[in-house]
């Protein structure tokens, strides 16, 4: 392959982009197609089902400043997390195989912390979890993320 051939191919590519561009709405249609194709089947979402910030303080069982978050995955397992200052503790429940599972805590500011689980599914992370945070659970190829939660 010569440089001249490559340059001519580049020119041809630019020409085709001009001569026969995709219809204006094509990309938007395809984004909608992918979104509607229920990516959640494979790309699971951790859905926030309970948040101590939404509950009367008295029900938080004397946890004081701690923030409790409960997420459900569509597959049936769940993640509980307690955020207390720079300590984030939690547990994955109803997950059959805990081996190789990793939990990642991220802040919208770009910091992230990843840890494994102990034999009963507990994890503990020392992290400055402030601002917007989210959890991601990886099990081999399967990944489930929560939406961002304001702390």
């Amino acid at each position, binding site marked *: 392959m010569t440089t001249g051939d490559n340059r001519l191919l580049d020119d041809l590519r630019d020409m085709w982009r*001009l001569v026969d561009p995709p219809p204006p709405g094509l990309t938007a*249609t395809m984004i909608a*197609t992918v979104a509607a194709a229920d990516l959640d089947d494979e790309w699971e979402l951790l859905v926030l089902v309970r948040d101590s910030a939404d509950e009367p303080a008295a029900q938080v069982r004397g946890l004081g400043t701690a923030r409790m978050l409960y997420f459900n995955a569509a597959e049936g397992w769940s993640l509980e997390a307690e955020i207390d200052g720079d300590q984030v503790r939690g547990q994955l429940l109803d997950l059959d195989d805990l081996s190789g599972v990793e939990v990642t805590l991220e802040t919208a500011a770009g910091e992230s912390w990843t840890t494994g689980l102990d034999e009963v599914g507990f994890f503990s992370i020392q992290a400055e979890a402030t601002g917007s945070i989210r959890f991601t659970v990886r099990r081999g190829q399967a990944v489930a993320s929560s939406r961002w939660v304001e702390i």
Partner: protein
Amino acid sequence: MGTMVTMSEHRGAGGQLEESPWDKARGAFVAWRAGDATAVDDLVSAMTPVLWHVVRAYGHDRESAEDVIQATWLGFVRLHQTIEDPQAVASWLITSARRGAAAHARTARRAAPVEDETLASVLPDEVSAETVAVLDDEASRLWGAVTTLDERCRKLLRVIAFMDRPDYHSLSQDLDMPVGSIGPTRARCLAKVRTALTTGGER
């Protein structure tokens, strides 16, 4: 006019080349796998125009091309976990679109046997006169040269031009050519373009 906008989006404001769609696709796919759920939109935005050109190279009209591209993305949703190397996501999508385009062409021929010859010889809905009229000199000379090529050359060059790293092995299967002949065929097709550019002159 819209076509000119497409061009200026491709080049940066200072005339430099922006990150290629294939590189954007890799970055977006890696980010998506790392947990950024919105990155899949960037992947679709980067690759849909590329898939358009690959599919249109097979001579599909605009509607069929959209169908093939949509099927490609639905296949991606179903099978993305089988893409072992995230760096290969663009090639994976292009290969899938090429297969879809080739299969769609076969089905169309079967469905309309009477029009077989017409379908094989015409690039339907190709390019309007208005579009050609707004092309700059360079593009219109190139377009003129490309129209002198046979269908096989036109298809091969357009597909290769939009491939990330040309994979001659899978191309040979899809275009029904021996692997060893793709490089030489490509060179021959490009030589024909050059000849047409010099002899065709102003066209």
